[in-house]
């Protein structure tokens, strides 16, 4: 985990003071609403339907137990005792008052946290693989590069007023858990033939109103050139991105209009001017960043022996065995595992977590996982470094805490934006839809039989719930002031990314669960042995689903 030095602390405390002054001047009437808008957004502060929402940055998803305890106390003191894990791995508070925000930021700063650039038309929090540093399939740990990008993007003086928001994701494994193909810039860490680490650079991916898979503009960028190349991309975007129409302002529209080749040439030309500037990274700096992400003191564990012991428990307890299958993921160190804590039990808004749970999580992190946890874009929490010999004890604690719902990767592990219950941009509510589906599909054996199935819900086109890349996507739409839901099929995040296709006319809220059931039925009847939903869909196409869902009742 990165640790702030006096420079980082200074920058952060100057930010806290700056924003306190801005809030004061706003409350005194010196700053207008219109002027305050970008200032508060660049500090993660939205004015929501019911109250402001404050989005706290969780750089590349990493949190320490100290930070978790601070979040718990903020949830208690300034909010209603809970917070929300967003689909971009950040933490959101839904009920702070504007007057309290400067104090909240000051408290966060004491644990090296902030809300910098979590919204607004600037470079947002960089995201990565939730299993970074522990995944067996990664080339190198992507987090040092994320930290380098975090520092470069924080208060970048030239790129704070871009045409639109700008998101960067980094992955170091082929199984792209960071969805780099649907980001403004996607960086895939690769090794060239000489074994040198560098980046494959994609631009212009994105979800939202016009979903697009990003284009590769450079097959191999040496690591020292990372920041100057990013500067070049951003400068081209800042100068040429559209500013006349908010819906056409993302970089994907520019890349499409210019064509990826021309865009790449422009970037290359700009880059030639700056590639050897002092902004060029040094090996020393890369090593410094890496020094914060070294391996914790893992114990020597006899993997075969613990596996045998686990086997005994799984034979005896079905519930444990289910959890082990679904919520425990492989780790690169023998004898260790990553454990995903589900924030999706039925009856709880997906991604919500209470102050008590945060504190328990902090204790569990200290006891079982070297004091660190990770947030995931599926809105769950991961304990990254659990000794396999501790798994059974850990499960015993997780169960009563509501963290052990064994549904990771299944239909009820729903990605869901806050929707109409909180968000003022929403066309429709999303949480009640998720809840109804979770309650309907409550038979675990049936869920497991359905296998890996991503169901994602967004309350509007902004696609915070990533509905385009859900195998089943649900999108809230507004029809003459009434809430309806459009269904999409065939989206996929990860290595073979694809965007969903619209099934047909939209449905009322009480019909959605039934439609999902019909879609699932078609899959079950059509699948080949061991075929996952997405593969069946790709084989048979959308028509059989259409026919079933829109069949006239006899």
């Amino acid at each position, binding site marked *: 985990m990165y640790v702030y030095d006096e420079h980082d602390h200074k*920058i952060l405390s100057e930010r806290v003071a700056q924003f306190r002054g801005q809030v004061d001047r706003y409350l005194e009437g010196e700053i207008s609403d219109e*002027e305050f808008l970008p200032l508060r957004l660049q500090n993660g502060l939205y004015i929501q339907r019911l109250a402001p929402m404050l989005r706290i940055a969780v750089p590349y998803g990493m949190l320490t137990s100290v930070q978790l305890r601070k979040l718990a106390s903020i949830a208690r003191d300034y909010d209603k005792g809970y917070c929300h894990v967003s689909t971009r791995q950040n933490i959101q508070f839904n009920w702070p008052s504007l007057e309290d925000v400067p104090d909240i930021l000051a408290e966060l700063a004491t644990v090296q946290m902030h809300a910098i650039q979590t919204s607004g038309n600037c470079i947002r929090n960089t995201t990565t693989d939730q299993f970074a540093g522990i995944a067996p399939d990664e080339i190198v740990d992507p987090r040092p590069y994320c930290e380098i990008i975090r*520092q470069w993007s924080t208060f970048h003086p030239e790129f704070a007023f871009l045409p639109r928001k700008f998101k960067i994701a980094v992955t170091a494994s082929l199984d792209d858990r960071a969805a780099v193909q649907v980001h403004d810039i996607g960086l895939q860490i690769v090794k060239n033939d000489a074994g040198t680490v560098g980046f494959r650079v994609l631009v212009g991916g994105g979800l939202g109103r016009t979903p697009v898979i990003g284009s590769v503009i450079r097959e191999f960028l040496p690591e020292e050139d990372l*920041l100057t190349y990013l500067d070049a991309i951003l400068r081209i975007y800042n100068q040429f991105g559209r500013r006349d129409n908010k819906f056409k302002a993302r970089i994907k529209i520019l890349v499409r209009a210019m064509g990826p080749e021309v865009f790449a040439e422009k970037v290359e030309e700009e880059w030639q001017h700056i590639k050897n500037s002092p902004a060029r990274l040094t090996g020393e700096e890369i090593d410094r960043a890496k020094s914060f992400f070294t391996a914790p003191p893992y114990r020597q564990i006899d993997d075969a022996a613990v596996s045998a012991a686990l086997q005994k428990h799984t034979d005896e307890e079905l519930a444990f065995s289910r959890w082990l299958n679904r919520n425990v993921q492989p780790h690169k160190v023998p004898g260790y595992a990553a454990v995903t804590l589900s924030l999706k039990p039925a009856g709880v808004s997906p991604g919500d977590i209470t102050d008590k749970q945060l504190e328990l999580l902090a204790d569990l992190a200290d006891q079982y996982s070297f004091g660190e946890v990770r947030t995931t874009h599926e809105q769950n929490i991961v304990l990254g470094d659990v000794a396999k010999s501790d798994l059974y004890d850990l499960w015993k604690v997780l169960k009563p805490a509501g963290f052990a719902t064994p549904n990771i990767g299944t239909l009820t592990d729903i990605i869901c934006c806050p929707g109409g219950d909180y968000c003022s941009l929403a066309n429709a509510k999303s949480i009640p839809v998720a809840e109804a589906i979770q309650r309907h599909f409550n038979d675990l054996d049936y869920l497991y039989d359905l296998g890996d199935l991503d169901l994602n819900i967004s309350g509007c086109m902004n696609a915070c719930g990533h509905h385009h890349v859900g195998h089943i996507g649900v999108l809230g739409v507004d029809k003459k002031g009434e809430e309806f839901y459009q269904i999409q099929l065939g989206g996929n995040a990860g290595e073979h990314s694809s965007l969903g296709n619209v099934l047909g006319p939209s449905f009322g809220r009480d019909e959605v669960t039934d439609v999902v059931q019909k879609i699932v039925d078609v899959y079950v009847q059509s699948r080949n042995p061991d075929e996952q939903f997405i593969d069946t869909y790709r084989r048979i196409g959308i028509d059989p689903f259409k026919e079933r869902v829109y069949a006239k009742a006899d």
Partner: protein
Amino acid sequence: MRKLIKDGAVVTDDWQFVDADHGTVDALPVGKVIVPLALWLENKAELSKHLPKVGVWLNGEEDTAQLHDDVAQLPLIAVNFPVFTDGRGFSAGRLLRERHGFSGELRAVGNFLRDQLCYLRRCGFNAFSLNEKYDPQAALASLGDFSEYYQGAVDEPLPLFRRRALTS
């Protein structure tokens, strides 16, 4: 006369700003004038005779390279911010300083916010014609919102990582 923030102090502005549509060379007021880029480019020979009493302004979207050959002789270049959310002027400032080598007065004009002063300063601006609703004396504080930065820019070419390496 209008107040101006220049080099960290409040001063009186002795330049006159010529709007885009009021510009013919004959109609220019006497004294120091800041003329639109188009007028400058079309009448460079004539206007050059009045140097150093002529400055040029452009919009953030206009290509700064058009002034590449002129930066050595121009005493002042102004970048106009049509709306404060239009960040093109920040790139324009850096390009004028870092790529074209302009060392005269680089002035921000138009619709920018007091809260953007620090970023503007970092991008090479040293003069700010702030909206008159602000108290310029109070606004000076925003120039120094930050005294430490991660990135290199015009004010401090070395990014923090290079400066860290020097001191450790």
